[in-house]
């Protein structure tokens, strides 16, 4: 019995040491270098869009790693890291720092460029709408174009509100002969909201995307392609549908554009979308309290073309500028109304840019 007792004590002693070996090393919460290396390596191992976005991640390491040293402040570390992440120009990359439960810094890659190039204001929009605007949530409102038989629905997000609000908006606008669906500055959300829109407006159940998840250390390691099929309306809407887009139409907003434009009665007017089509990772954490997310999928069309980093091209390109805003007009809305009333567009609807 004594031998057994000694053996057990010895084994327990071994296990305490064994725990550290088994669990491995962890980055230090105090080390700036560890923060940078952990984040860089995590992107290197798991971010899905390096190749699609033509990014040389190793060369970014060569540029930014020498700027990190242990004596730098947390603000300085933050500045270097966000500058590096901004090079990826992907709205699915975000990072925030949190202290005492509050977000103290927040950054989304590529958003600065979006803000610089997007001219959109609800203030100049309302002049085209009837006075009665139904707004159940700040991201969804609907009305009717003044004096025309055209319904207008603005959708600014694909999450964050009850999906029935979206259904009610769609039900209201489908009472009119034609529809303008405004997806400008739509920051995305979940696929369920895309399906909700398609289930009212789309007349096609074609495959819209092939989805692959990155599953290995190499930048082109991906799992099998899963096909996503569009949800077709039971009684498809037969009037003209104009979808308005701009560089602020992101992610699930872009999915909505694609799910609609495969129908032959849909015309997309505006500017190219953001080109951030993947879904994002779960929140990921660094030991100093920062958390971040990144894209984990490669999304392509059925024919293999990708819009990641490129965006979906509209059928008719028109952008608001500082001049149109100076005149207090929304030239995209004007074009949409004119198109419904007078024009017939027969252009090529898709312009593939990257073939995988």
């Amino acid at each position, binding site marked *: *019995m004594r031998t*057994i007792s000694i053996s*057990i004590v010895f084994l*327990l002693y071994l*296990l305490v040491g064994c*725990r550290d070996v*088994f*669990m*491995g090393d*962890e*980055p230090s*919460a*105090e080390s700036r270098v560890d923060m940078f290396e*952990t984040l860089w390596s*995590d992107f290197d191992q*798991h971010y899905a869009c390096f190749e699609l976005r033509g990014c040389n991640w190793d060369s970014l390491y060569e540029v930014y790693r020498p700027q990190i040293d242990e004596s730098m402040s947390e603000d300085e570390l933050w500045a270097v890291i966000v500058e590096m992440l901004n090079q990826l120009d992907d709205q699915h990359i975000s990072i925030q720092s*949190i202290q*005492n*439960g509050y977000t103290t810094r927040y950054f989304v890659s590529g958003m600065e460029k979006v803000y610089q190039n997007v001219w959109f204001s609800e203030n100049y929009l309302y002049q085209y709408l009837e006075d009665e605007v139904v707004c159940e949530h700040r991201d969804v409102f609907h009305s009717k174009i003044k004096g025309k038989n055209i319904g207008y629905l603005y959708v600014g997000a694909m999450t964050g509100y009850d999906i029935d609000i979206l259904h009610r908006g769609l039900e209201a606008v489908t009472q009119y002969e034609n529809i303008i669906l405004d997806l400008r500055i739509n920051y995305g959300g*979940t*696929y*369920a909201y895309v399906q909700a829109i398609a289930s009212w407006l789309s007349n096609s159940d074609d495959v819209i995307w092939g*989805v692959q*998840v*990155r*599953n*290995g250390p190499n930048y082109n390691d991906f*799992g099998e392609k*899963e096909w*996503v099929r569009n949800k077709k309306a039971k009684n498809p809407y037969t009037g003209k549908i104009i979808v308005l887009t701009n560089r602020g139409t992101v992610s699930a907003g872009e999915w909505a554009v694609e799910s609609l434009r495969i129908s032959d009665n849909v015309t997309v007017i505006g500017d190219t979308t953001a080109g951030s089509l993947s*879904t*994002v*990772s*779960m*929140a*990921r*954490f*660094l*030991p*100093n*309290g920062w*958390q971040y997310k990144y894209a*984990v*999928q490669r999304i392509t069309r059925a024919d293999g073309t990708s819009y990641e980093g490129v965006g979906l091209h509209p059928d008719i390109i028109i952008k608001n500028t500082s001049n149109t805003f100076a005149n207090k007009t929304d030239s995209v809305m004007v074009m949409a109304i004119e198109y419904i009333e007078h024009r017939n567009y027969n252009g090529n609807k898709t312009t593939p840019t990257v073939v995988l």
Partner: protein
Amino acid sequence: MRKLITLLMIVLLMPVANSQSLPNTVGVEGGVVFGAFRDDLYAPMIYKKTGWGVDLLYNPNFNPLKTFMQTRLNYSMGGIDYTPHEHFKSKFYSAELQFDYLTRIFPYLRFGEFFVGGRAQIAAQGIYLDILATSYTYLVNYSLMPSIRYSLGNQTHRFYTQFSTPLVSFVCRPPTNGYSANANETIPQAVANALFVGGLASIDKYFALYWHTNYTVQLSHRIAIGINYKLAMQRYSNVYTYKDFQNYISLNLSYEL
């Protein structure tokens, strides 16, 4: 997969149902859990784990001189904590159902008895970080594992130690975007996937080692008490690595029916 698991459980529990010829034993066990946890799916840090666990035991005395059988249902929960930051605190939950069946070898040894056999185990464990992010992690595994057990003692004092390690497991993990790998599922589908969409993993992908040591004192003809130490080490490597190192010290009370 669900049918396979149901069938597996029926086959495993059949001997229990047929073992009414000799008295059986039921028991309850409770104690403290502590250890460490790391899941690269959401963080590279090593979290401390502290909590408590409770077990229900059933030992059918099918043929106590030649075999050892036990069914164990465990539930444990507690907190995970990464000291440098307050907001990294969260909770963990785990549940296990395991069935051991071992048969005695070398029956005439002077210094104790050796048993070999196997364990079937269904285990699920997860955490949910619900304050600042909808981030969670889980590992569900269905394993068949060989076991070796060494026992010695007399009618009043008994001791055993047992090692088990899975050879083949079916392991489920969350998709890397947390909800739906292809962004095309409903929530019920995603929940079902949490339990049943996974892959077979051999020892190179899923390594685990379970060590259980028990010392029991027979208080009366029917009642016994004991103290247990259990170690569970798990490592699952796929796109992200999951590691769990858990100690469990517990007291048990058993009653012969």
